């Protein structure tokens, strides 16, 4: 007892260290987390995080307004300050526009993506400098569960490693402990994506030296890992070099480019095919819609374009010249003369009606404005 009181400080140190080692050993051995402590900590910190985010947004907004108003007062006298104000305003608006664009892109992606997703906002990072983990503002109350995939319209971002009531922890694909199954778009080479702890780079492991991987080639998720649905873009190959056993393939992750503000949590994933040849997110030119075929065309304008259309038009003019209505002739009745030149017949008819008219050879038929038959329906 005397010995303990004499070495009281060291004894306390040993006890605290021992207790934490037991705690740590239990978690590592049983692969279970001390969830209660984390739930308390995260639930206590999340409202402060939201408050900080709101205050920051409000401060930036107020500062922008203040700068604008302050410069407006001096606008007539101090041109240089005016230029500064406009620059600041421009930057602020650009930032707002980028933010709006991101929201629109996210909404559009969410609408067209077959998976059921939940939009979320990044509100914080992990306390560990070596790990790449972020907090998002959606938790188990919003349906988020551990193991769900997190993406942006540009590509995968990471996976949920812990879901708390009001927030979730997302392990980014750049974290050293992250892994996902990936496949290359062009050569269909499979590998395992792992993080390197760097923001701009990941690595694809287990690709043999004999397999072909091109720089700039896209990698997609395979859907084998049970987290990400198949067919989501991962990133492009930054470099691929032969290694001792496997190739050293480094990827530039596409989902983290341009910052990480808003993300989508995949609540129910739907596997999709790997697109052929076309890079994801690339600009696609959309042809303008065809004009309304029911609208009347201008006289003289060419209404038909194909051979079949021209033939149909000719038959209609022949029918008109011979006063024949297609579809009304009974069986055995005289069919129209299809060898008749409709132009000559029309000119002859006009000459008979008005003898002083111009020669028949110069007369032009009026263009018909009948609605063309739908495809597959023969002309009568």
């Amino acid at each position, binding site marked *: 007892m005397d010995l303990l009181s004499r070495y009281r400080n060291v004894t306390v140190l040993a006890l605290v260290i021992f207790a934490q080692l037991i705690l740590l050993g239990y978690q590592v051995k049983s692969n279970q987390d001390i969830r209660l402590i*984390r739930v308390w900590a995260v639930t206590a910190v999340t409202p402060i995080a939201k408050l900080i985010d709101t205050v920051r947004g409000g401060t930036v907004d107020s500062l922008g307004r203040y700068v604008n108003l302050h410069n407006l007062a001096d606008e007539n006298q101090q041109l240089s300050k005016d230029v500064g104000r406009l620059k600041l305003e421009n930057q602020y608006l650009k930032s707002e526009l980028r933010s709006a664009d991101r929201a629109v892109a996210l909404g559009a992606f969410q609408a067209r993506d077959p998976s059921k997703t939940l939009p979320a906002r990044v509100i914080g990072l992990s306390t560990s400098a070596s790990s790449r983990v972020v907090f998002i503002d959606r938790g188990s109350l919003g349906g988020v569960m551990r193991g769900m995939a997190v993406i942006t319209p540009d590509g995968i971002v990471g996976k949920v490693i812990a879901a708390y009531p009001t927030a979730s922890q997302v392990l980014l694909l750049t974290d050293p402990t992250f892994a996902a199954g990936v496949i290359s778009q062009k050569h269909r080479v499979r590998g395992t994506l792992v993080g390197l702890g760097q923001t701009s780079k990941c690595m694809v492991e287990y690709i043999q030296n004999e397999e072909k991987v091109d720089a700039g080639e896209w990698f997609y998720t395979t859907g084998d890992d049970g987290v990400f649905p198949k067919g989501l873009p991962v990133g492009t190959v930054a470099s691929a070099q032969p290694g001792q056993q496997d190739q050293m393939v480094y990827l530039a992750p596409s989902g983290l480019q341009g910052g990480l503000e808003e993300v989508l949590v995949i609540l129910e994933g739907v596997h999709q095919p790997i697109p052929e040849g076309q890079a994801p997110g690339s600009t696609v030119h959309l042809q303008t819609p065809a004009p309304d075929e029911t609208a009347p065309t201008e006289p003289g304008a060419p209404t038909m374009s194909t051979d079949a259309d021209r033939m149909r038009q000719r038959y209609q003019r022949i029918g008109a010249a011979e006063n024949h209505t297609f579809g009304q002739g009974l069986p055995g009745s005289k069919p129209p003369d299809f060898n008749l030149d409709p132009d000559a017949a029309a000119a002859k008819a006009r000459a008979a009606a008005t003898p002083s008219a111009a020669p028949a050879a110069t007369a032009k038929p009026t263009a018909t404005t009948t609605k063309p038959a739908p495809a597959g329906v023969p002309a009568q």
Partner: protein
Amino acid sequence: MSRDRDLSDQILIGSARERGVARFRRWGLIAVPLLAILFQVYVPRYYESLRYLELPLLVTVYFALMRRSQIAGIFIGAGIGLVQDSLSPQPIGVFGLDLTLVGYFAASVGMRIDVEHVLIRFVLAFTLFVFHQSFYWALARAFLGQRVLFDLQHTAILGLLNAAVGISLYHFLDKLKE
């Protein structure tokens, strides 16, 4: 020779007055570590370069130094470390163990030398930062089996930067003393 003695007199604690324990406002003891952890969680989101600023470590070092009690240092370090652990993806106890030792060592040093001296604070902050990084690396590799990289040169540079920030921070925290 006498110059060396002057320097040692400046650094080593020579009187009971200097051995006195610094007392802080109660809210400061809770709010400062909490703010340091919140800083590490939220500020690097907007300023990526501040990710490497280990404010919880610097705060642990400061309070342990100023309390001049090894037991207080142990509990301050363990408390801050465990909260830091609970907001990180790794098992709870990694930062706890790390900062417990940091708190103990800082308090041990604080009992022997004049921790008001700027140079001493700088050297201590630097040394304990390097110790913190090395111990974390060892724990992550040995216990968690993680492939955490350790670059001594990089760590030394970060240590210098953290120590420089620590000096300014400690100057500010001195004002919280009663």
